[in-house]
């Protein structure tokens, strides 16, 4: 199938089989490899991107159905609302160890903060309920989200 996708505010021309997921197209066709393969069942969140500003599992979206929607990947996070603050907070709070869950976590964070700029820790926990991390134990990630929120830094 031939179609155009808008990713990080660039227009890309795609020629790919109908069965390609958005994750397949991002990585294999567009070489945007920041978004990760992992479970491919919509359980781990490593493939999380934004579709019209909301977090989705790109492994469960057929790429051809994302036409006409605004796709944001980790490569576009620096230009997104809360992006720079969140990424700085991840560094400040040691919220990444192996880094594999990190793009997905950051995208879930951008989705949350766009809808709720002052989340409680419980709301943050709920927002990352679809993102697994095997390294950090989540605490530093939650603190990083809190730092990036409008409520601002902690002591």
């Amino acid at each position, binding site marked *: 199938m031939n179609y155009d996708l808008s990713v990080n505010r660039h227009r890309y021309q795609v020629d790919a089989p109908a*069965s390609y997921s958005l*994750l397949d197209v991002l990585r294999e066709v567009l070489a945007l490899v920041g978004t990760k393969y992992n479970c491919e069942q919509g359980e781990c969140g490593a493939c999380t991107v934004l579709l019209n500003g909301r*977090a989705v*599992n790109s*492994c469960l*979206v057929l790429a051809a159905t994302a036409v006409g929607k605004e796709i944001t990947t980790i490569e576009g996070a620096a230009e997104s609302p809360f992006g720079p603050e969140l990424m700085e907070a991840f560094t400040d709070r040691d919220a990444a160890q192996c880094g594999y869950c990190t793009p997905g976590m950051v995208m*879930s964070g951008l989705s949350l903060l766009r809808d709720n700029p002052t989340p409680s820790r419980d709301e943050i926990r709920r927002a990352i309920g*679809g993102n*697994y991390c095997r390294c950090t134990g989540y605490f530093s990630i939650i603190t990083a989200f809190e730092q990036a929120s409008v409520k601002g830094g902690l002591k």
Partner: protein
Amino acid sequence: MVLTPLSLASHSFVLAQPCSPEEVDKILAADPLEAKVLAGGTDLLVQIRGNAIAPETVVDLGQVPGLDGVVELQDGLVINAATTLRKLEEEATVGTRYQALIDAGRTVGSPQIQNVATLVGNACNASPAADTPVALLIFDATFTIRGVAGSRQVVATDFWIGPRRTCLQPGEWVAAVRLPRTADAMASSYLRVGRTRGVDLAIAGVACAITAGEIRIACTGVAPAPKRLTHVESVFAAGGLREPDWRSITAALNEEIDPITDIRGTNTYKRAVAAVCLKRAYAQTVTRIGRKNPNRQGGSDEL
């Protein structure tokens, strides 16, 4: 060890993107066994990838006008097929009148799943441990089913007939689900226990609605399909809603459910979890009744 790529890229199908409900009817009628409907896709794509199904055509509802959204009518609410769980959560009327449906939608999968998955798709996937069907059961929902031969209405209690089986015939699809208007004073809850608070199905879950001395209860994870518990309802009503006789209610519950032992727990464990969910769902519903009817003494006139 050779890792087999799970990517969808290794499957092949035609993606049809019809522009009207009639076109959907025709495509499904042309190939009823090999064409599958794509609403949100969060169940369909997992099944294709896992080789549970191998459709030749996937029919995307995303371009069909009139399938997305909630319509409020005098006598109820219509939720169209392509309405995501996220969209449902944002509709004020749903939150006011059908709170159990919001509770259920918020426990499905994860935020990422809820942003894409549809209520109708979740119902049609018909997992015996699904969350939204029990909310639809307590509200006496009806499904509008379409096919090339015409359309028909099926009440929720007739919709789920077994594990992963609905009453849909090949070539049929659900265009909308309709909820009758509730009494203003009605309150409801859905509550479940899963293995984690993240992505999982229910070990057991209970939806409960109360209004004017009437209680409605449905349970998931405890039978081949999500089930309305009419026996438990009558035992509850017989004992009075204000101070439930939990001994006889729990006995009735154990007569009416029969969970299988599986990866989520044993028969015995699930029975215990269902009883806990029932108590908690009842308590939460009573609290919500009190909030909805604050002028009455203790809000318990509704009980």
